[in-house]
């Protein structure tokens, strides 16, 4: 297992793109997804490429948890840092997200309706559901410091290919 990647950013939305890009690139190291050809003039170097399902899951979940920390822990006012520790393995990725803001009441999250129709389409409260569903495991330890731990496993077939 490689040494973890560590990144600290101020707990505001301004720094979100930096954190998302770091997580996307880390996910790509695990999934071995194809990098865009830098010689391709049509390739936008600023695009975050998460077409691989593993990258999609990791980045989608992370974006929601980062949003949650900025909104709930730091109340959109910043005033603290968001510390990331990303651990890469052959068979998956672990992302620990630590903040020093207000604890989040994860037990009070309202589940999404099971049968969505035009009337019940939600306009909020989707973030935790997206993160939990995208991941293989997600835990939260209220503090402070508050600690989110996200785990996503590579599909077994891809792990086997990577080892061969």
């Amino acid at each position, binding site marked *: 297992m490689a040494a973890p990647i560590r990144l600290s950013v101020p707990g505001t939305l301004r720094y979100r793109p930096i954190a998302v890009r770091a997580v996307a690139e880390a996910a790509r190291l695990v999934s071995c997804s194809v990098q865009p050809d830098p010689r391709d003039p049509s390739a936008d170097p600023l695009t975050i490429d998460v077409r691989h399902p593993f990258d999609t899951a990791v980045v989608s979940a992370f974006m929601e948890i980062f949003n949650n920390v900025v909104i709930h822990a730091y109340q959109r006012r910043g005033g603290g840092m968001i510390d990331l520790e990303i651990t890469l393995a052959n068979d998956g990725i672990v992302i620990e997200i630590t903040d020093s803001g207000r604890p989040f009441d994860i037990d009070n999250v309202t589940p999404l309706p099971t049968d969505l129709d035009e009337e019940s389409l939600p*306009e909020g409260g989707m973030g935790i559901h997206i993160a939990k569903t995208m991941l293989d495991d997600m835990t939260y330890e209220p503090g402070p410091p508050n600690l989110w731990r996200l785990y996503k496993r590579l599909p077994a077939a891809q792990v086997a290919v990577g080892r061969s």
Partner: protein
Amino acid sequence: MPPFEVQRTSDLTTLTVRGSLDINSAPALAEEIDQIVASRPGRVVVDLSTLDLIDSSGVAALVKLYKGIRNAGGSMTISGARDQPLAIFKLLRMDKVFNL
């Protein structure tokens, strides 16, 4: 190239969203959405073929547009959703509502 673009013809309004629709960009789209809903269009197509990333804030903005259009008697469809945005709509089981 701007992240949002609105094109209007006599019977169709097309909203194209590019790049990332997230907690940082959704507030700007919300202003555009208010203008679209206020114009009471009969038919709206949201083109997501050049959208790479979406989060729950982006989904919420599109749901708000959908409800606004429907409440005004119009219709809205989403076209071109792919990769991560399509995965999010499917996860939220909105793919059937939006006919994706």
